[in-house]
């Protein structure tokens, strides 16, 4: 018979392994994966004054997956000389979460920018893919007012932005296919996506085909992005916790096998 550890010791260790890095992040090394680096490089290489469409489709349920990546990418964009059009197309919860969770996190970056000149927010626009098509074709027709009710013609930033042809990059949250269909295929605007971790393998073909110019999938990729922009946040902390807990499980598996091997050699079961 294999003598087993009392599982309660494992439970105690797991509390420590997950809790400790949350209290004091270790900053464990994190290899940067290619899709994340591609988006970072793309933003780095944008010419000054470029216009970026940023879609913050974060819902409460998907906050852990999408929130940190939204914050990290926005921080990067705001630190560059680019103009940002903010919009939510995926879920009506977007603006609420943007106001309560994203804005406080990027407040220090927003201070240096002027609303209406450097960035503009259109809030949630209904219609999903139909709305995307309309926006890509003619923004002044599809988006009449910004989130504060200012008519689009009175926003300085929007003066020179008419359609998707004026965009340098589209960064979206959620599923990538509609954006590829509406922005990349007809207008050739590069599209990047912030998506769920589980979608990463499925979206790899789009990356290799060049339809996506970058991808931040899940909390792990968000942590990579935080490393790239040297601004550790929510993702980095839990990334350490996840790394340690996975290593812990792997070590337990090895220990279990050694135990099993030893007892069997001793003539156990």
């Amino acid at each position, binding site marked *: 018979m294999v003598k087993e550890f009392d599982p309660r010791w494992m439970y105690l260790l797991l509390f420590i392994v997950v809790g400790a890095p949350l209290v004091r992040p270790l900053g464990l090394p994190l290899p940067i994966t290619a899709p994340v680096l591609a988006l970072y490089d793309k933003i780095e290489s944008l010419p000054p004054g470029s216009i970026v469409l940023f879609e913050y489709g974060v819902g409460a349920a998907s906050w852990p997956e999408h929130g940190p990546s939204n914050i990290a990418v926005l921080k990067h964009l705001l630190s560059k000389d680019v103009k940002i059009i903010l919009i939510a197309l995926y879920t009506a919860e977007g603006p609420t979460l943007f106001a309560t969770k994203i804005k406080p996190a990027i407040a220090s970056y927003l201070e240096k920018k002027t609303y209406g000149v450097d960035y503009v927010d259109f809030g949630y626009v209904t219609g999903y893919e139909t709305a995307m098509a309309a926006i890509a074709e003619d923004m002044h027709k599809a988006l009449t007012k910004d989130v504060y009710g200012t008519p689009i013609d009175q926003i300085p930033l929007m003066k020179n932005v008419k359609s998707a042809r004026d965009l340098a990059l589209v960064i979206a949250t959620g599923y990538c296919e509609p954006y590829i269909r509406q922005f990349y295929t007809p207008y050739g605007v590069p599209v990047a996506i912030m998506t769920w971790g589980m979608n990463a393998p499925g979206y790899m073909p789009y990356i290799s085909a060049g339809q996506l110019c970058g991808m931040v999938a899940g909390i792990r990729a968000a942590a990579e992005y935080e490393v790239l922009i040297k601004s550790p946040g929510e993702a980095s902390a839990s990334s350490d916790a996840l790394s340690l807990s996975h290593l812990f499980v792997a070590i*337990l598996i090895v220990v*279990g096998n050694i135990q*099993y091997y030893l007892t069997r050699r001793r003539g156990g079961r």
Partner: protein
Amino acid sequence: MSWARRRELPLFLSAILGIMAFADYFFDIPVLHSVVSDLQVWIIILAAFAMFMGVINLTIVHGRVVMREKDIIRRGLSAWTLFLMYLMAILGLLPPITAHPSFRWLYSTTVAALDPTVYSILAFYITSASYRAFRARNIETMIFLIAGIIVILYNAPIGGYLHPGIVTLGSWAMNVPIVAGQRAIMVGAAIGALALAIRTFTGRESAWLRAGGGG
């Protein structure tokens, strides 16, 4: 009314309704479509009534404990359960139905905390289960172990740093052999379910229809 007690009639009814649901899926018949979508609403209404059966059951189970049990702790806990159930139901029925602030407060204080907590307790159980399950006892468990370790290390944010090969191997495992096995399970489950549906509609599956007589 003895004919109504026979088991064939309800059986026939369920078969007809099941076949209608299938036909609605394949054929574009507006009348059938509206009937089947109405039937799905029927099920929601029936389920709501079944909820009250559940409440009767909970009241019986906990009521008996409150009335008969000697252990004061068990009595107290059962009374507490019944109290909370009726309290929550009443608060929920205060207008606006299911949106009264007190109902919401109670929900966000208890359910909103307990649901994710109970879910997260799995982290512990998956740890202790991995410790036991991934033991190479024979070829099969060896394969189980190899796949498990590859994916665990692949998923760990630090994985690629330990060895770059882990990422290659991990994504290969996810995209090749695991896809094959997953697909087999899915197709198999679908035809199994289909066979079960056929047995149900011919009255050969569930005991509740198989048993004859009136009771």
